């Protein structure tokens, strides 16, 4: 089975093969090391002039990529750990994402900033976070995340082809996961719907009359899928899972359609709960619909501990999702 890591690596390889204007920049991305999570493995050997290993200078890497992008190239940046994205905040917020609009659409900045986020590996407070919510709502910046149901390769290919900046969030726990196929294996009881497009929003339903809608993205689809199976088999609760690949700005059309049927909404994310992605979704639902019950599942508002026991308690679990769904529908 193809893993997410193989998809992403293959997409970079294919993109560089077909477009000589694509450059990779990042820390420790040269072979034989191939990057901290091996997403760039093999590429510096194949494209030695176009894979640029950098000093530990996250702000400069993103700024340099933006400058390259405004002068006809298509750089893809790797920020080794998502936690370090704070070091690029000025570049992303005040430069990369602003140039196009601020300069009256006279320039475009086609860069992709890829970064592994997320915990569950015991890396502790500064190497485990999901900080993408800090960059959601920044005008001019798309935030995108792959999952195992969509095709991560297509998603990354679309991000590279995008003429505007994309922050591409890869949860570390996804890299070794295999892609899922609806109707077989784990998903034997599920049907797939939703949108196509560059950054699809997918809908996975476990029955004709779903009772709860669960919104999620990235790795949390793994937890939600396990929870949905348990809800179906153990509790006979049918769910509809809405899996976003474009997190910001977002289109909630499929979510609204689902809520017309279920009237119950659960949002699931790994970032801290307060002021999060789920909070924004629930606010939009409240503005557009009447009588929807909603709950958020997210990390506790704490730094992420190194100790496995503490980390598991701080981050959301499948059990949390099951319990929240039961409390919503009963």
């Amino acid at each position, binding site marked *: 089975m193809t893993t997410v890591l193989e998809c992403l690596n293959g997409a970079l390889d294919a993109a560089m093969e077909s477009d000589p204007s694509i450059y990779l920049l990042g820390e420790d991305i040269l072979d034989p090391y191939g990057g901290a999570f091996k997403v760039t493995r093999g590429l510096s050997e194949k494209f030695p002039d176009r894979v640029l290993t950098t000093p530990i200078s996250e*702000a400069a890497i993103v*700024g340099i990529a933006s400058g390259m992008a405004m002068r006809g190239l298509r750089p893809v940046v790797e920020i080794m750990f998502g936690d370090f994205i704070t070091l690029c905040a000025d570049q992303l917020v005040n430069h990369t994402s602003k140039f196009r609009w601020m300069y009256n659409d006279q320039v475009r900045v086609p860069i992709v900033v890829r970064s592994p986020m997320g915990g569950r590996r015991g890396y502790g407070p500064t190497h485990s976070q999901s900080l993408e919510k800090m960059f959601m709502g920044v005008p001019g910046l798309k935030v995108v995340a792959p999952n195992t149901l969509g095709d991560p390769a297509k998603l990354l290919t679309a991000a590279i082809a995008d003429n505007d900046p994309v922050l591409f969030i890869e949860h570390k726990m996804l890299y070794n996961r295999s892609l899922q196929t609806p109707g077989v294996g784990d998903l034997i009881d599920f049907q797939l719907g939703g949108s196509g497009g560059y950054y699809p929003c997918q809908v996975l339903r476990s029955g004709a009359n779903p009772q709860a809608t669960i919104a999620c993205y990235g790795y949390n689809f793994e937890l939600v899928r396990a929870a949905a199976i348990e809800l179906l088999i153990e509790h006979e609760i049918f769910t509809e899972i809405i899996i976003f690949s474009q997190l910001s700005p977002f289109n909630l059309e499929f979510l609204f359609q689902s809520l017309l049927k279920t009237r119950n909404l659960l949002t699931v994310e790994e970032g801290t709960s307060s002021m999060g992605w789920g909070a924004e979704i629930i606010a939009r639902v409240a503005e557009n619909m009447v009588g929807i019950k909603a709950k958020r599942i997210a990390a506790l508002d704490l730094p992420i501990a190194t100790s496995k026991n503490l980390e598991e308690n701080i981050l959301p679990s499948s059990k949390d999702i099951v319990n929240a769904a039961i409390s919503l529908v009963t």
Partner: protein
Amino acid sequence: MRYNVTVMDKNISLYKTMLLIRRFEERVLSEFSAGKLVGTTHVYIGQEADAAGIFSVIGSEDLIFSNHRGHGHFLAYGGDPYRLAAELMGKATGLVGGRGGSQHIQWRNFYSNGIQGGITPVATGMALAEKIHKSGKIALAFIGDGTLGEGALYESLNIAALWKLPILFVLEDNHYAQTTPVEKGVSGSMSARFEAFGIRVWERDTTDVLEIQFATSESIHSVHSLIEPAGLILHTHRFSAHSKGDDLRSSEELARIRQFDPLLIHGARLSTPESIKIESEVSAIINDAFKRAEADPYPELKQETQ
């Protein structure tokens, strides 16, 4: 120096550029006082020789990344005073349709942004792109003494030196970061900051446009011939406030630095009739620019494309 016709033409051209900047900026300040301009601005009065000298020798296709105090750079680049005036007034005909204002402009290969230090990696990336394209173009990034406090600058110097990128870092030291004197903001040596990265640096304490022109030529020649970064440190004087009402300097200090007025220094090389003729030409350009800009419409907010 033995003057011939060509040299005199160049002298007139340099003087005209400096006077255009001076009169433009004076007009900006008076328009603010009259309430015709809103927001904020940072004028270049006193530093005109830097822009005039630098832009007289760089290539027309080179890439410029300017900063919050960028009007002088833009005008010396050859930018249209009318489009700049319209931008300052927030008009649809402004350089970026009124979206950016004074410190966020873009025209041809000229870019500016109001974030100290943040522009330096972007300019470095532009230099990298041009090196990859083998275009022969170089990048110029304009920084000030205040920028020396920003970490992104040192990340950029390091990478520009490591990757041998064709970029000239122009450091205009006007002795003040807003109201903070350089003594309270910058430790150690300015030139050693560049030299520590192995970057060759030219340093001049002058407001004589001809000296600045010469130092720029040398530093740019180094960037082109060695294909590597260089630094150009120009110690200068800002006669006006940082922006509009934030000047804490004494009248004695302001009087003292006025002796370094680049227009007086270079004006001495011109005849009186020449100076008068230039003054009148510049005056007509400025009047026309502001008059046309004032009559222009304001922009409408357009629905964004995604």
